[in-house]
């Protein structure tokens, strides 16, 4: 701050306001609500859910106020001026020279994510009121959901890496609790454990990265900014100062990025995310699609200078973030084709979209990537909640598209319309929001000179359009199947996942009487709100319509300064946009044709194709087995570590130790036989007897030391210590 004292005196003071200054209240409200729900939730008329919803609503209001005032703040700044974030910091605790602060860091990015998180959390909580009604751990569910929001908001607001880490870990914990919400089912607790462990693997990177940044940046930040090396602002300035050793910052950036890989489900640690769909659908919608998983992306965007310098973004050739992002886009999109579970399709789609964000960040397209966080949150939450709505009201708690869905567009018109809007947004069809963000990413990647990655992005767009069309077709078109057709096969419940077994089930048995139907208002209203946003939120940064429409860029993107690297934006050209639109429409059309033929008309050329053509079959199998990554992790890595060591130890035990013993015994026996035969009997006897007596007497002599009496052991210990001490003293004097 002191660095720019002279400049800021010249410039007009930036507007601030109560909401910005007190933004730290935003996470505090849910945290208090969490404590209250845990303490008294069960005694409240609505089992504590009202506290959760209320706290989220007030957080939303606070966040919206902060957003409004932030916009005012940016408007009050001059054109090229760096808009200072609103930073407040208090000393939390200190130990041995370390000062751990607690505080807020509000800038465009955090305000954006705050609003998204608070908004989606509010809607999801309202949605959960209906979706989890009657659940056994209803109160705990809302407690965990509220704590999750508190953690995420705290992380977003964090002014230093320790607080960031705290929020990050709270989210991890809540994710674990919520995935395993119906832990009675073994699969769910396994999924929860898997998610936890996989993410923890990445978290090691976060710890390493934070520690490295602290130790290398602390001196500089203390000297120049007067803040500790945990401060996000300090680290950013340090990274851009040209001061840091390039190796250190590269390693730190890679370490941090490993954490992002874990949290945001990037290749190769993406395997937990689809499994995490075992949690209740609102959880999937909130945590595993729109908010928590973007934490990794947020970390990259937050500490962008570190990655920018450390990984040489905008330099020649690709960098780690881009490569990982690109791989993730393609492989997860491919996986989405072979899933029958609608939530898993959406999960892989999430992974793929997170890959887009990473790709954008890696290619220097900061603004489009952040904007994609914003738009993606709305349409992906809408899709997930739509899937939940289907399972809740139509498919009898099943998520299997092939068996229990189909033809639902007639019975669930609202869900259908919102789903279609969100799908189009996801595919990036003009003028839905996804177009404005995703296309921008692809465009900017190309503009910044990464043509190969742009092509991968386009391929990804094609695949996205295709698998979403497949999923939509299977769900809403064609003939109703299974539960959607009104079949209530109780024996099939056992095959379903835990959703069939959860407690709400009993309340919904009434549905069996009247088959699939539209969901209630508590479910459809959030859907409608989200779909409106999925449709319209893109216009906040609608590059095609010229500079004046790029409001988001004005508000959110940090202008080039000591705290933010200089970035360029690709000029929008309709030719490129129409190319990508064309690709998207091709994807939709091809997929629609194939889906119609395969699923409805049962075209003999397509049905069973994978069985007939060997190469396709292999590919299908490869995809169905998720590239054998789980096998790699569980069977190969774990076993290769565990088994060989165990086997080696066993072998060593069996062959070498036993061999020595046996050999020793054998040779002794032979020797004694030889001795017996060859030496005079009396001498032999004497020897044997003497040795036995000797052994026995040694045993008898040493036996008292093993008395099992504590005080005797103490006596031995102390006398040994005393003698040793005496010897030491005598030697030294």
């Amino acid at each position, binding site marked *: 701050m002191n660095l720019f004292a002279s400049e800021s005196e010249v410039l007009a003071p930036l507007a601030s306001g109560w909401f910005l200054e007190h933004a730290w209240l935003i996470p505090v409200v849910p945290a208090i609500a969490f404590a209250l729900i845990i303490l008294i939730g069960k005694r409240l008329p609505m089992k504590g859910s009202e506290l959760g919803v209320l706290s989220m609503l007030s957080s939303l209001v606070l966040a919206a106020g902060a957003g409004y005032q932030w916009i005012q703040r940016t408007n009050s700044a001059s054109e090229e001026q760096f808009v200072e974030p609103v930073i407040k910091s208090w000393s939390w605790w200190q130990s041995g020279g370390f000062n751990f602060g607690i505080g807020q860091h509000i800038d465009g990015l955090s305000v954006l994510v705050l609003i998204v998180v608070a908004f989606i959390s509010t809607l999801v909580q309202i949605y959960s009121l209906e979706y989890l009604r009657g659940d056994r751990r209803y109160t705990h569910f809302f407690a965990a959901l509220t704590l999750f929001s508190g953690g995420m908001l705290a992380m977003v607001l964090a002014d230093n890496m320790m607080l960031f880490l705290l929020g990050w870990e709270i989210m991890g914990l809540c994710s674990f609790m919520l995935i395993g919400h119906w832990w009675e089912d073994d699969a769910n607790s396994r999924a929860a454990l898997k998610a936890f462990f996989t993410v923890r693997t990445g978290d090691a990177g976060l710890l390493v990265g934070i520690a490295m940044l602290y130790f290398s940046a602390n001196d500089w930040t203390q000297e120049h900014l007067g803040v500790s090396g945990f401060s996000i602002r300090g680290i950013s300035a340090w990274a851009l100062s040209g001061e840091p050793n390039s190796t250190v910052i590269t390693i730190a950036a890679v370490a941090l990025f490993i954490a992002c890989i874990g949290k945001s489900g990037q290749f190769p640690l993406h395997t937990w995310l689809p499994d995490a769909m075992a949690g209740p659908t609102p959880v999937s919608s909130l945590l595993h699609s729109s908010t928590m998983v973007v934490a990794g992306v947020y970390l990259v965007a937050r500490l962008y200078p570190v990655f920018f310098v450390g990984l040489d973004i905008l330099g020649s050739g690709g960098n780690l973030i881009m490569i990982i992002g690109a791989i993730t886009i393609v492989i997860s999109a491919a996986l989405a084709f072979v899933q029958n579970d609608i939530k898993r399709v959406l999960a892989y789609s999430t992974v793929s979209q997170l890959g887009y964000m990473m790709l954008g960040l890696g290619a220097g397209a900061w603004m489009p990537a952040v904007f994609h966080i914003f738009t993606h949150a709305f349409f992906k939450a809408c899709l997930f909640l739509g899937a939940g709505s289907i399972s809740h009201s139509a498919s009898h708690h099943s998520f299997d598209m092939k068996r229990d869905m189909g033809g639902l567009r007639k019975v669930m018109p609202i869900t259908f319309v919102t789903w279609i809007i969100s799908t189009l947004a996801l595919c990036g069809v003009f003028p839905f929001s996804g177009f404005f963000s995703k296309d921008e990413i692809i465009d900017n990647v190309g503009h910044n000179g990464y043509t190969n990655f742009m092509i991968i992005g386009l391929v990804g767009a094609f695949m996205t359009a295709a698998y979403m069309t497949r999923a939509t077709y299977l769900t809403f078109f064609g003939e109703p199947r299974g539960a959607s057709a009104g079949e209530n096969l109780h024996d099939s419940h056992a095959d379903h996942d835990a959703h069939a077994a959860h407690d709400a089930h009993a309340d919904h048995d009434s549905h069996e009487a009247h088959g699939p139907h539209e969901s209630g208002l508590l479910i459809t209203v959030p859907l409608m709100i989200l779909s409106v946003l999925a449709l319209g939120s893109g216009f906040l940064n609608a590059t095609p319509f010229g500079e004046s429409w790029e409001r988001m860029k004005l508000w959110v993107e940090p202008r080039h300064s000591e705290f933010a690297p200089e970035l360029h934006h690709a000029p929008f050209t309709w030719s490129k946009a129409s190319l990508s639109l064309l690709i998207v429409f091709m994807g939709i059309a091809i997929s629609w044709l194939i889906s119609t033929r395969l699923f409805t008309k049962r075209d003999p050329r397509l049905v069973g194709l994978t069985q007939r053509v060997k190469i396709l079959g292999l590919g299908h199998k490869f995809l169905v087995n998720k590239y054998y990554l789980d096998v790699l992790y569980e069977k190969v890595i774990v076993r290769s570590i565990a088994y060989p060591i165990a086997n080696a130890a066993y072998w060593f035990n069996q062959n070498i130790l036993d061999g020595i013993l046996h050999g020793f015994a054998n040779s002794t026996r032979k020797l004694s036989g030889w001795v017996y035969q060859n030496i005079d009997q009396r001498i032999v006897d004497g020897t044997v007897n003497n040795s036995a007596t000797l052994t026995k007497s040694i045993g008898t002599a040493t036996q008292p030391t093993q008395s099992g009496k504590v005080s005797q052991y103490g006596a031995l210990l*102390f006398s040994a210590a005393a003698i040793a001490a005496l010897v030491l003293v005598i030697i030294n004097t």
Partner: protein
Amino acid sequence: MFVNQFLFLAAVLFCIGVYGVVARKNAVLMLMSIELILNSVNINLLTFALRSGSTDGHVFALYIIAVAAAEVGVGLGLVLLVYRNKKTISLDDLSEMRG
């Protein structure tokens, strides 16, 4: 006052405590001997704190007192449990670990 007079006092208490640990077979008495040892340590800490003019020794002495309280709580819980199961708290009778 000499430094050594306090340190000697602590040393004497320590040795008496050691004797108690060795000589006593009643579990409660053994715990008491351990308390003697802990107190001699505290005297040392405070002496050195005064000698060096810092307050670190005081903090450690307080921590030792707190840990001793925890130790006695758990220790006596164990003694009660042993008494309930064996009807004795003589440590010599608790020699299942005898070799």
